[in-house]
């Protein structure tokens, strides 16, 4: 009957593990943060530093998307949610605390001759009226339009700025995360896409064949996102369902303070001025 013994033993082990650990955990103060995969690496780094400064505090950061951050903060599954955009009107029940800003810039392949595009040209490219680089002053060749998947906050920002609807866009490639956009454009000399400015600056600087394009005569740079002159930017928010108390309050204050600024820069986002 060794099969039976094995089954029993494994079940027992699991049960014991579950029991033993539940008792061990309640001793320390614990905070759960879930949400946007864009913010998660930053929040995890801030959490590590916060834990060092506050022994006994434990902060678990979980990724999974902005909508998860909203849902979990509402349902109480998480103490704090991470949302990589401004809150919408129907989310007014939540309290939002920005910890950083992130600019969104247009990128092209480095070998593309086109140096600037007007807002109207960008709209024409993204709605499929312009399909060849020759029409906007570049070398002849088909344009590969790279856009973000429906619901993503960078897409919403982009649509809002250019006053477009999601269904207006005629794309050849739809992507998910930021780095996928950079890698897609880097591998296709005819591509155009929009990504987070900080990471694009970093990638372009470390040899990835992409370049950032200015918008409305404002250069796409971290500096212009900080001073607010760059038109496409979004806040990175921590959200809570009620006015935060105790450990949650302490963590949010810490994340917004100057002590976390170097971590924000390390993730190529723009710290808020105190």
């Amino acid at each position, binding site marked *: *009957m*060794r*099969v039976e013994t*094995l*089954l029993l033993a*494994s079940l027992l*082990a*699991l049960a014991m*593990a*579950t029991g*033993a*650990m*539940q008792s*061990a*955990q309640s001793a320390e103060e614990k905070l*759960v943060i879930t949400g946007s*995969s*864009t913010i*998660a*690496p*930053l929040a*995890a*780094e801030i959490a590590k530093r916060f834990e060092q400064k506050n022994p006994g505090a434990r902060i*678990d*950061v*979980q*990724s*999974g998307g902005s909508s998860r951050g909203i849902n979990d903060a509402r349902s109480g*599954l998480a103490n704090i949610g991470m949302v990589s955009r401004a809150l919408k009107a129907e989310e007014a029940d939540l309290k939002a605390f920005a910890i950083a800003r992130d600019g969104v810039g247009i990128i092209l392949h480095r070998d593309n001759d086109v140096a600037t595009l007007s807002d109207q040209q960008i709209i024409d490219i993204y709605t499929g009226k312009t399909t060849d680089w020759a029409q906007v002053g570049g070398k002849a060749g088909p344009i590969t339009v790279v856009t973000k998947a429906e619901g993503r906050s960078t897409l919403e920002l982009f649509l809002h700025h250019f006053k477009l609807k999601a269904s207006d866009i005629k794309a050849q490639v739809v992507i*998910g*995360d*930021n*780095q*996928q956009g*950079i890698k897609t454009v880097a591998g296709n000399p005819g591509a155009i896409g929009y990504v987070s400015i*900080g*990471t694009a600056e*970093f*990638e372009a600087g*470390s040899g990835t064949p992409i370049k950032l394009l200015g918008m409305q005569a404002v250069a796409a740079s971290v500096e212009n996102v900080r001073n607010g002159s760059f038109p496409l930017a979004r806040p990175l928010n921590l959200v809570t369902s009620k006015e935060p108390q105790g450990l949650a309050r302490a963590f949010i204050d810490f994340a917004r303070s100057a002590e976390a600024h170097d971590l924000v820069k*390390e*993730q*190529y986002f723009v710290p808020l001025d105190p």
Partner: protein
Amino acid sequence: MRNLAPTTNRSSFPIPRDRLVQVSVWSAAAIVAGTFAWVLADLLVQGASRIDWSFLVTAPLKAGRAGGIAPILVATVLILMVAVVTAVPIALATAALLSEFVRAGSRTERSIGLSLDVLAGLPSIVFGLFGNAFFCVWLGMGFSILSGGLTLACMTLPILIRSAETGLRMVPDEWRYGAAALGLSRATLLWQVLIPAAAPALTAGLMLGIGRAMAETAALIFTSGYVDRMPSSLLDSGRAISVHIYDLTMNVAGGDQNAYASALVLIALLISINSAALWLAGKTLKRRITTS
């Protein structure tokens, strides 16, 4: 055996057809090996320089761009252990039921088989969302290694059952008659004869299952989670190595090198698990020979 009929005809022109078969088999093998070498070379070129002892024993820094992967390795192995310990007994038992107790082609066999095939084809992200709702929230395990391991167990179950079933069915019926003639119970037959005889097939299935489990990203982000601290219990959240690789390549600018290095470590881990499994299978096989 209708396929044998035309052979006399064909054997009068054996050379061109046989050459063709030889050439296609060898070139297929070359294509597969070449592609694998291409992927591996890509990983080596980009990641090998990052791997050293400290990469294996230190914690990640700067969101994984610097530092090592020690806590991630530990979490990965723990998740895998939970998955294997839960899935293997259930898989063996189900496979034994299918191959020894249920008539092939019967209604029970077909319905169990169908549900397994559907399970095998469900997108991993569905398992992830299900695991999150069922293990993390409903059973109250939270984001934990336990939830992740159990979710992986669900995912690998179909592969394990299918390969175990095939392995058991391969054992010639003469052995079953022999055991029956000796008056052995079916439990003894199963444990002493069938499972050892099917060990090589079981191992192959286990390797496929473990490979799939280790490669899993979407199912684990929502269950075992994202925390890259060294886990101290099975109820801690722990980041699996594939989740780490995914985060580094898709979310962290400048994380590619460490992602490639982590992928190489993952391959090394697979090689060692594979060797261990082969060694174990060899031992089981030997036990069968000595007992029979």
